[in-house]
């Protein structure tokens, strides 16, 4: 991915921004507030958050590439069905891969691996980006969004595991005297931590010159 690569059509040239917008300016978790179901459900430990983030990233890149390849052939009337089939295939691949890597992680993530199929981040990327851009653009952009999603999950999962279990990736951090803050592992803790991160990020964005702390653009993807 170098800036010298020439775009084929009217799409803007492949730049660092294609990659970075998903991580910072359009971060799915911290700015766009997309994919909140898995975000809330699997971030009770850093390991789960990392696993879920990477699984979603893989599905994002794979499905975006395929959607982009087929973008001129898929008729508009059946495009959503086609995207779902493509996303479901990659989700199944990830499902088997995680079972092959670690059954402990697989049982911890539970149904949320299969639910990547209906993750609005992925469908949103396929519909709003990959269906109109060349393959390389789509993959780079999907990689950025995936890493942004992983980053969001890791921020939540790290804090929740640290406070709720007193450990990081399963290793105790605070020593035996620490009284775990159990509510952090429960859904309310997820909202507390997410709220605090959003506060911090909105404050940071507001401090940047020329950027008003406006709310994220409304993307209605169903959930």
């Amino acid at each position: 991915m170098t800036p010298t690569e020439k775009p084929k059509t009217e799409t803007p040239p492949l730049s660092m921004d294609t990659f970075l917008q998903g991580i910072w300016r359009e971060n799915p978790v911290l700015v766009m507030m997309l994919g909140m179901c898995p975000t809330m459900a699997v971030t009770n430990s850093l390991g789960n958050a990392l696993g879920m983030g990477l699984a979603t990233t893989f599905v994002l890149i794979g499905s975006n590439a395929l959607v982009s390849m087929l973008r001129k052939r898929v008729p508009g009337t059946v495009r959503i069905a086609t995207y779902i089939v493509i996303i479901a295939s990659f989700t199944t691949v990830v499902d088997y891969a995680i079972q092959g890597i670690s059954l402990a992680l697989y049982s911890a993530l539970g149904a949320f691996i299969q639910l990547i199929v209906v993750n609005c981040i992925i469908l949103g990327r396929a519909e709003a980006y990959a269906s109109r851009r060349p393959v390389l653009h789509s993959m780079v952009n999907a990689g950025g969004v995936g890493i942004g999603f992983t980053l969001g999950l890791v921020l939540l999962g790290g804090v929740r595991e640290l406070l709720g279990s007193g450990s990081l990736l399963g290793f105790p951090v605070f020593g035996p005297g620490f009284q775990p803050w159990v509510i952090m592992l429960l859904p309310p803790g997820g909202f507390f931590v997410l709220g605090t991160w959003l506060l911090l990020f909105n404050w940071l964005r507001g401090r940047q010159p020329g950027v008003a702390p406006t709310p994220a653009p409304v993307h209605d993807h169903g959930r």
Partner: protein
Amino acid sequence: MMATLGITALVAGVLVVAAFEITRPQIEANRRQVLEQTVLRVLPGASTRQSFVVSADQLRPLHNGDTDGAVVHAGYDHNGRLVGIAAEAAARGYQDIIRLLYAYSPDCECITAIHVLSNKDTPGIGDKISTDPAFLANFRALAAQLNAERSALGHAIVTVKHGKKVAAWEIDAISGATVSSRAIGKALNDSAQRLVPVLQQQLTVLTRAPRETP
């Protein structure tokens, strides 16, 4: 349009089948390894295991693809002596089915350990069933003796309220996690009522096994 949909479906199918075929050996190896570890964990002192199928009142060594009945795993120590039998049990918890592996010792006719395999109950509350030391102490010697006819347990295994345990076949619930604790009691009772009579009756098959099938 049909061609595009056909191509998409074909690519999807190839992807899924390829992923399944590539990962299958690894997944099976993982499953075996996890089972091996958990069986040997609930049966301390055991170094080898052998699996059997229990159906009706029969007990036979497990062969590939034989799923007609409940699977139990007998653990043996270095000298080939039967240490205990591990079996799977399951019951409805607070959120979802709780699955666990328990160890039954034919010598003391009691349950000597449990290990929770899957549990989706509330983290920090319902998942104490796998971590709370006081609760796990229930299962160091939980009585599972047969009745006089040797057809079922003499006393059903029950979970009682926290601090109310008096008999050896009662489980002292975790305060605040009663539903999850009760599920353990129910799972153990359901499984033991069915398996223990057969295991005791077929004990010679189990104790002989390691010498007959290397």
